[in-house]
């Protein structure tokens, strides 16, 4: 057994987190910053932080992930990291020539009280930022929130620090992407274009973390929201925040700064959430939903109806991040499945409340979020009440193998398969892909374990 020490008996823990269902804020900030064109993310902390974040993102995307670090030593930790950051800014603009450096803090720089706003202002005052170039920042101490809130903080940072209101409204809608894959962002752009709504999607990691092989390494790949587009977000007629945890804070900041009204929608994963997303986007753009999209929806419903017997009553354990778990849980319920155990390391009452509302349709489901809401606890729950399907990031494979549960990889990080960066999980077609994946593992299981006389040709 891979996880041979996991006991069935659940004991409440207060000090120890085992097999976490989250990671720390800075990696989220780094991921978000990669969604700005020409941006070099910068980690203000020890070298290890930057190295670990780049490694994890690289393993997830199988793509270059460029980012720099303030390379703190003991001296910097005692006397403050200002000198390191100022020197880093100078070196980066000279050697790597980005349009913008997006600095995020770490537990180290936050503990010693480095103030990124003050240091970046000093860099500007000292003339270390070349004309037409920018340094933005976000505070992302690792001892607060999770990678998801770190992402939200950097998205808020880029919105607040770039968006301006010129007083002249533009006929465009901001779509603020919660933490999703480049493939999902690409799909949202495609849906908007098919709907006929002009959107400004940010951040946008498509064409950054799914770059083509050309024989040349593009240090700043083609994709990403441009600074001009980000600036124009202040003149958009409204914003859609896609995800109440990872996207809404930026929408609130934009409303405050530039009076752009917003609506928060769930990430369009599954039928109901995509329905709401399409309605919200068509309303925001004042357009009618074209037949093409209605037909795409119809294909998803068709498969759900045709295959309902394979989903109905199946118990599912899932773990991951709030903005994905909310619509995913709802979708499982729409499919007739039973979400039985759900954990997320990301804290937050808003998340808890949304999940409880959705889980009214699944009485008896176990749900917990925040510290100690970890995969060890979920595994224990599974030992007490077995499930038919497990959905989560790559670390789930250890539970899946030990307990012999069909497993669908979903979320972050996925270190052992490809596909997530190329094929979306959002929208009707993304949801259809998810249905196909779930069906695939359930049917493979049936094919592998059924008695010979019960082996089915047609399913």
């Amino acid at each position, binding site marked *: *057994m*891979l*996880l*041979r*020490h996991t006991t069935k008996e659940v*004991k409440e823990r*207060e*000090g*120890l*987190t085992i097999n*976490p269902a989250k*990671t*720390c804020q*800075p990696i989220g900030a780094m991921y978000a910053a990669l969604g700005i064109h020409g941006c070099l993310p*910068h980690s203000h902390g*020890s*070298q*290890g*932080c930057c*190295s*670990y974040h780049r*490694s*994890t993102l*690289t*393993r997830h995307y199988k793509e270059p*992930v*460029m980012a*720099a670090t*303030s*390379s*703190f*030593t*003991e001296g910097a*930790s005692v006397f403050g990291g200002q000198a*390191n*950051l100022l*020197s*880093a800014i*100078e070196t980066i603009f000279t*050697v*790597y020539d980005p349009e913008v450096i997006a600095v995020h803090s770490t*537990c*180290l720089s936050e*503990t*010693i009280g480095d103030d990124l706003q003050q240091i970046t202002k000093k860099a500007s005052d000292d003339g270390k930022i070349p004309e037409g170039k920018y340094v933005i920042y976000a505070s992302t*101490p*690792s*001892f*607060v929130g*999770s990678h998801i809130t770190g992402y939200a903080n950097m998205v808020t940072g880029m919105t607040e620090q770039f968006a301006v209101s010129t007083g002249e409204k533009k006929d465009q809608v901001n779509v603020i992407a919660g933490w999703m894959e480049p493939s999902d962002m690409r799909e949202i752009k495609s849906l908007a274009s098919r709907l006929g709504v002009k959107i400004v999607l940010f951040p946008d990691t498509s064409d950054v973390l799914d*770059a083509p*092989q*050309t*024989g*040349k*390494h*593009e240090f700043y790949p083609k994709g990403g929201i441009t600074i001009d587009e980000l600036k124009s977000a202040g003149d958009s007629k409204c914003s859609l925040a896609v995800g109440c945890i990872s996207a809404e804070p930026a929408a609130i900041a934009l409303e405050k700064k530039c009076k752009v009204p917003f609506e928060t929608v769930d990430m369009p994963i599954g039928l109901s959430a995509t329905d709401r997303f399409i309605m919200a986007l068509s309303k925001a753009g004042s357009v009618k939903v074209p037949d093409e999209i209605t037909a795409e929806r119809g294909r998803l419903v068709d498969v759900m109806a045709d295959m309902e017997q394979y989903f109905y009553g199946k118990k599912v354990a899932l773990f991951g991040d709030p903005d994905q778990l909310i619509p995913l849980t709802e979708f499982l319920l729409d499919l007739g499945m039973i979400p039985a155990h759900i954990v997320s390391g990301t804290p937050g009452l808003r998340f808890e409340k949304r999940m409880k509302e959705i889980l009214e349709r699944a009485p008896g489901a176990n749900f917990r979020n925040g*510290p100690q809401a970890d995969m*060890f606890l979920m595994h224990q729950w599974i030992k007490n009440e077995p499930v038919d399907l497990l959905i989560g990031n790559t670390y789930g494979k*250890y539970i899946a193998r030990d307990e012999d549960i069909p497993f669908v990889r979903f979320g972050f990080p996925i270190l052992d398969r490809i596909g997530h960066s190329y094929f979306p999980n959002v929208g009707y077609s993304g949801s259809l892909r998810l249905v196909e994946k779930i069906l695939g593992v359930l049917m493979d299981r049936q094919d592998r374990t059924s008695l010979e006389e019960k082996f089915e040709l047609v399913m």
Partner: protein
Amino acid sequence: MEAKVLIPDPSKIKEELINKYPAKVAKKRSKSIVVNDPEIVPEVQANVRTVPGIITQRGCSYAGCKGVVLGPTRDIVNIVHGPIGCSFYAWLTRRNQTRPETPEHENYITYCFSTDMQEEHVVFGGEKKLKVAIQEAYDLFHPKAIAIFSTCPVGLIGDDVHAVSREMKEKLGDCNVFGFSCEGYRGVSQSAGHHIANNGVFKHMVGNNNEVKPGKFKLNLLGEYNIGGDAFEIERLLEKCGITLVASFSGNSTVGAIENAHTADLNVIMCHRSINYMGDMMETKYGIPWMKVNFVGAESTAKSLRKIAEYFGDEELKARVEEVIAEEVPAVKAIIDEIRPRTEGKTAMLFVGGSRAHHYQDLFSELGMTTLAAGYEFAHRDDYEGREVLPKIKIDADSKNIEELKVTADPELYNPRKSEAELEELKAKGLEINGYEGMMKQMMKKTLVVDDVSHYESEKLIEMYKPDIFCAGIKEKYVVQKMGVPLKQLHSYDYGGPYTGFKGAVNFYKDIDRMVNNPVWKMIKAPWEKSEPESLEASYVAS
């Protein structure tokens, strides 16, 4: 020796590498980039701070301590005291394989333990939470040992992990609890963490069990972390030769083995950088000499086995080692004879780790490939120039912060395994006893040696040298491959391996053959990108 393949003028290349840097940075970097001469071995600046903003391969002290040295031992519960990330990123990502004795035996490598420090703990202190976490881990698992690793905020807020560990060790009674002050900001790279780990393992584990186990030729394998199963292959060979492995530091290892390590009669060192401190300390305290070996490469493996036999000085063992080599070599030869015509004359660059950039050059030379440039990520000057430079190395402020244990001979257990005269005699026979000659003496003249290579420098090197393969880690993997050059990861082995011993050499030959001759590298351009539109027109007219 001069490089057999034509290479550009290295001094011009060096100029090119640094001319884009701000003046101060260029000055600093120029001392870490040297043109090699194996005869005189020029000085390389190493183990110094990376310039902030430079995109470096390096990680932190915590990574070296928890990730590298302590991580591979399967029956220690390793609790990371700090915010969640540090423990999360080091969770199973280093591929330290381990094989518990039975399905019931302990193995915590698949688990990730953290105190998941929150803001309130940073403000009011985290010791209380740490104690609760240790107690909870004990109640759940009853492990033999619990190790505590400090992350950056821990040192800054003043949590005393050592006092907490002592208190909990006393309270629990049958569990060894010890802490490491391996905050990420200590030192300039992972290297500081290796040293801190060596100190802690030496203080808290080695020597805890004096039981002398049977075995005529007993050694410890130091600095072998069983990535991709490397230690399994070395274990197989040692066993076949009749050599007893008391403890491995720390691949496929256990608390019990490490506690008993001082009963061995020789320490052989694979990764000099990460574990040489342990070799020195065990020699001083217990009288066990250490010897540098290299099980990467078939020839190096044979040589290392012979050196071990020579050390023990037993004719029967020497004969057995020759038998084993004779048995193993034909399979290796059959493969290399088939592969070498396809790899001969190709070129490689290695920028990785603290010893791999040296060791793997042996495998490339067995493939007939030339190493054009190499460097370490976190090594010191002795790893480049050889241990004879140790007295000349200036101790800077960053190194001073890392504790040097004061070790003296143990009044009861000190027992010099060999007399001074015997050791001198062995050294004269070419055994690297308490010594390491470093990387540069093996590299050809006019090759380039670059310490802590930056992203910018690697791209430039690839542009100018156009190597057939580049060896580094995951962060560099896809950058280099986007340039159309295959990258072999020498931390994780691209999820392959083992690469040690005879079987490992065969694995490596096959992998490199596959990579440098893979047809995909010729498919990068689309057919319509290969010819100019004019010629298309011309061919249309001509037909």
